């Protein structure tokens, strides 16, 4: 028996008001998996993700997260829904005027009734889980790009979300740091049961971490293929195979 999907996307029209990029796409994400959204530059990956995290109104169709339709949720229900998801933005989007600890503690300050000490403990644990022990007092400007991404993951996980969205986690990182980040994501997914939805280009990262992927295409205005990365690589569809091959040639 397959488990109930945690995210259900149905007939989703992707795009901005007056500018549609993709027509009626649909897919499911299951609890605990690392799900990849792939595709060429400008094919609407980031836009799809913006729809999924409720930043951008849907042009059509529906998205359900943990059974709640995100475009119908209002008020209290919407806040509850937002607490189920965490987002790591491409540049980290850490608040520059706060230390790492304060960054991670911020959602806890807002959404829990724990004491200051207890919130500190939870935030410190998050930072330890992403390997940033000892950097709690650092400002975001005083750490490296890879560390910033890890801190951003720690913040995204602060409220124990069920789904964490990652926009291009590998962008701007060297292959080794990027591989470490992959390992971290895998470990968090497998041990904590967190579902990850990630937008990425990095082929190595896709094969290492992603359980399933969808491949978006601008010309086809939809999903070109869906499945395990290894299956797609051997796909008979030349357009699909080309994406994986060309990427493989491009990466060192």
């Amino acid at each position: 028996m397959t488990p109930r999907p945690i995210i259900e996307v149905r007939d989703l029209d992707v795009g901005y008001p007056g500018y549609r990029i993709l027509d009626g796409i649909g897919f499911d994400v299951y609890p605990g998996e690392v799900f990849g959204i792939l595709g060429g530059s400008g094919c609407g990956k980031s836009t799809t993700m913006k729809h999924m995290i409720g930043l951008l109104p849907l042009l059509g169709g529906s998205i359900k997260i943990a059974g709640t339709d995100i475009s119908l949720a209002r008020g209290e229900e919407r806040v509850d829904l937002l607490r189920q998801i965490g987002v790591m933005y491409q540049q980290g989007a850490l608040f520059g005027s706060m230390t790492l600890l304060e960054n991670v503690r911020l959602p806890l300050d807002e959404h829990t009734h724990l004491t200051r000490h207890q919130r500190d403990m939870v935030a410190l644990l998050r930072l330890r889980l992403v390997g940033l022990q000892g950097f709690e007092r650092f400002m975001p400007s005083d750490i490296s790009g890879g560390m910033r991404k890890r801190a951003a993951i720690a913040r995204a996980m602060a409220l124990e979300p069920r789904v964490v969205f990652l926009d291009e986690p590998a962008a701007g990182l060297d292959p080794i740091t990027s591989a470490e980040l992959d390992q971290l994501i895998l470990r968090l997914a497998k041990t904590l049961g967190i579902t990850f939805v990630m937008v990425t280009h990095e082929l190595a990262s896709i094969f290492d971490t992603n359980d399933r992927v969808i491949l978006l295409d601008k010309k086809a205005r939809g999903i070109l293929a869906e499945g395990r990365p290894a299956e797609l690589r051997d796909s008979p569809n030349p357009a699909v195979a080309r994406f994986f091959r060309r990427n493989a040639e491009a990466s060192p």
Partner: protein
Amino acid sequence: MPAPDASASIDLSVVGDSASPRTLRLRGRLDKCTVETIWTRACQALPRSGDVRIDAAELEYLDGFGVALLHDLTQIQRRRGGSVSIHGLAPDQQAFLDLAELDQDLQTPSPRPPERSFPQLVGLRTTELWHDARSLLTYLGSIVAGTATAALRPHRTPWSEVFERCTTAGAFALPVVSVIGFLLGWVMGFSAAFIMHDYGADTLLAALIGPAMVRELGPLMTSVVFAARSGSAFAAEIGTMKVNEEVDALTTMGLDPIRFLVVPKIIAGVLMTPLLAVFANVAGIVGGALVSRFVLDQPLVVYTNLLRDVLTPTDIALGMVKALVFGALVAGIGCIRGLQTAANPTAVGKSTTSAVVTGIVFIAIADAILAMVVQVLGI
């Protein structure tokens, strides 16, 4: 792993109170919803010393909040010379706990930096002030050098940028400068009018308004407006570029940030403040004229004739020189504060504020120095 459920609960009980080691039994779900209800209670259930066993065999669910609680308990007991051992966890819970490294404290960083004594504070502030003054001077030097180079090699100056700045910092400031100048002249005239009338000096208002506006208030007020409108904008703009490493990018491309970013703004400041001051002066004089005409009831020609007599070309030149000096100072300080911005977003706010404050302070200082020079030269 089952989904969190708001109705779920956690149960904490102490098993066999006199037994050693003391055993705490956790039953149910230890997660973000339930942890608030038992955190304090769990800490109180720890014995004053000795080892503690936690029986977690009936723990259904454990998340990061729960692990943080277990960390806290372990840490407290370790400080008391005891230890906490956790038994009966499910394999996935155990794996999570292994990641969390319970045997190492989560260091709560000390909340505030160490207190400093009063003499230490005085010393610290003094050195800060000294460093600030030195860095201001250094930048001032390189700006003067940069501007001089620009004057010698005008083809290397980005003139389109200069033009752009003149528009935003100069032309767009015209309404506010004119309105303030007019009100200044009007208010000054109005306050003086009644006393002048009492002393029979109804015809002499121009002798007050003319020199006061042209020599002193026009340039001063124009540069204060310039500091608030443009000095702050220069600092914010360059500061943001600094935060985004754009200034570094310029440097590594072999482009001098001073020539590229600072010189156009200085040129704009030097060109625009005197021109703006002219408008302020004219508006102020018009304000005075209205008071003379309608409050003191004098024909307009009385005002204009006297104005022609009391206003010398030296007055006008002096006013222009002042405006020019103030404008250069304000633009330069705005740029310097921008370049001094530290690499974080709050710093941009700080340097914007300090651009305005330092700008106005320097206007006051320069004004005092110029007043003395004028005194000595007998202008």
